[in-house]
């Protein structure tokens, strides 16, 4: 897979009763998933050189540590943009000074990258303020900008939306996607949400109790029955990129075009501009399957496809249609005579769709 050895990690660390042993190769947009206590944050700290683990770390071909060869760059020499959960802004410095903190001396203050990032992340009104007067969302934005201004070779983001309300989380994810796509900054994001992982990363690592449970291309890895079964809640959220086509204020809906083709309507979301990119989510529970083109239904979204796979997890069946997963009972599967290759229509109510980034 091209570009999928940008991040090379082969680390081992013992810390009290906890052991971390991770060997993985990842591309330029990767997510680390796992339950709390799996060692996700510890892994980020070890990559940043903040925790001394044994083994090797190379980013973009540059070896940051290789303890077998006696190489261990300290954190200040690694050029990694670490953004901890709460942003960790310096409380004694204004936003402007926080932003300037990581900038190379010769470019301190001003500069075109500074101006454009301040504009892109809408930081201008915050510059004179102190961190304690910022909201959670504002703090993350400043922390992200501060890390970016230091010119990192890789961003390490720890739970970038934890504790934010849905609207702020949506904006935060959109901001990070923008950074990823427009500034082309590689990122490794730690999260416990599949939807966040899918919105930000093309590859994922599943961590459990300090070990790699699974790793690989995001959707494929997360769809593996073994991985689905790992999830205690057995809830699958379909996540898809889309573009906003038009608003219909009187109809209470907005129309979007899905990345893989197909137009659907979502709840009216006036704060999104026409043509803006967004990420949508819908629960596998909320996707209905029809074996004929649906009519006479209040559900306004139908996307044609064919059954690609039947994934059985315990007493549930996940029917995969292209990138979509619908959660059915075995009885429903039998009644509809669902089998691989059969043409189906995915049906969903407008209000089952959520915007998770945009």
């Amino acid at each position, binding site marked *: 897979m091209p570009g999928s050895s940008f991040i090379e990690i082969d680390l081992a660390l013992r810390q009290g009763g906890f052991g971390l042993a991770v060997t993985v190769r990842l591309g330029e947009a990767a997510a680390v998933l796992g339950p709390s206590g799996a060692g996700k944050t510890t892994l980020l700290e070890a990559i940043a050189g*903040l925790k001394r683990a044994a083994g090797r770390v190379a980013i973009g071909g540059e070896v940051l540590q290789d303890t077998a060869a006696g190489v261990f760059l300290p954190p200040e020499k690694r050029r990694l943009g670490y953004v901890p959960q709460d942003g960790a802004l310096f409380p004694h410095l204004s936003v402007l000074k926080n932003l300037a903190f990581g900038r190379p001396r010769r470019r301190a203050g001003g500069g075109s990258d500074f101006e454009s990032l301040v504009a892109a992340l809408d930081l201008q009104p915050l510059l004179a303020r102190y961190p304690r007067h910022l909201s959670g969302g504002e703090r993350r934005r400043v922390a992200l900008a501060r890390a970016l201004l230091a010119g990192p070779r890789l961003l390490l983001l720890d739970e970038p939306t934890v504790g934010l309300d849905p609207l702020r989380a949506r904006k935060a994810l959109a901001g990070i996607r923008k950074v990823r796509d427009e500034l082309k900054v590689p990122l490794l994001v730690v999260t416990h949400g599949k939807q966040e992982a899918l919105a930000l990363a093309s590859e994922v690592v599943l961590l459990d109790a300090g070990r790699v449970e699974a790793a690989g291309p995001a959707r494929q890895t997360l769809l593996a029955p073994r991985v689905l079964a790992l999830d205690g809640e057995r809830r699958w959220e379909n996540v898809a990129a889309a573009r906003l086509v038009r608003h219909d204020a009187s109809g209470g809906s907005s129309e979007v075009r899905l990345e893989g083709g197909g137009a659907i309507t979502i709840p009216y979301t006036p704060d999104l501009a026409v043509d803006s990119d967004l990420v949508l989510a819908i629960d596998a529970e909320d996707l209905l399957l029809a074996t004929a083109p649906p009519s006479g239904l209040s559900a306004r979204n139908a996307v044609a496809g064919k059954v690609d796979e039947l994934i059985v997890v315990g007493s549930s069946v996940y029917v995969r249609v292209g990138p979509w997963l619908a959660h059915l009972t075995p009885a429903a599967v039998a009644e509809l005579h669902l089998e691989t290759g059969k043409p189906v229509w995915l049906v969903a109510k407008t209000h089952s769709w959520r915007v998770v980034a945009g």
Partner: protein
Amino acid sequence: MMAPVTSTDTASLVLFTLAVAAAATILNLVPGVAMAWLLSRQGWRGKAVLETLVSLPLVLPPTAVGLALLLLFGRSGPLGRPLYERFGLDVAFTWRGVVLASAVVAFPLLVRSARSAFEEVDPNLSAVARTLGRTPLRAFFEVELPLAWRGVLSGTVLAFARALGEFGATILVAGNIPGRTQTLALALFQKVQLGKDREALMLAGISALLAAGALIVAEAVVHHRERTLAE
């Protein structure tokens, strides 16, 4: 016999006491802050032992501390002998002994207060400073110290005030020699022994004023900084 207390005697007594306390505080500042920072770090080997050792002067009778210092720094002591033979420096029964005794006894007060201030600084902040290109030392001066300065300052003032009133250790290491090693606290003791209660009371009053003054100044500095920061 003692000469009667004159105002110039009192003035030089006050100056000497202030100078000794200031010297002891300055002497303590760098090692005290360094020790506080070290003790604020999480689990390393030997931390508990060092912790106990640092706090010992706080709980031991000051006279026991004084005795230990006398044994160490006396002319035949393991530290006092080389100091005298190499550099001709006498510690015991000189002003140096007064400074040393005050410094040792005041040290834990600075360390304890500064240490809890460092412990309150979010370790993620220095971690981020490191990833933004700072060496541990620069992260300390640019992030940790500016955030812990209040605790460091109040510890410094406490240590200074403690040094001002040091008695037990000082009298063993440095004796109570008027004009040479006598501080306010030592003079006060002497006045009481001589039955000069009024003069003793006056010295007690001066001591109280000095200590209170130090605390008030520190409070004012903290308050001023907080007001400017809040704006």
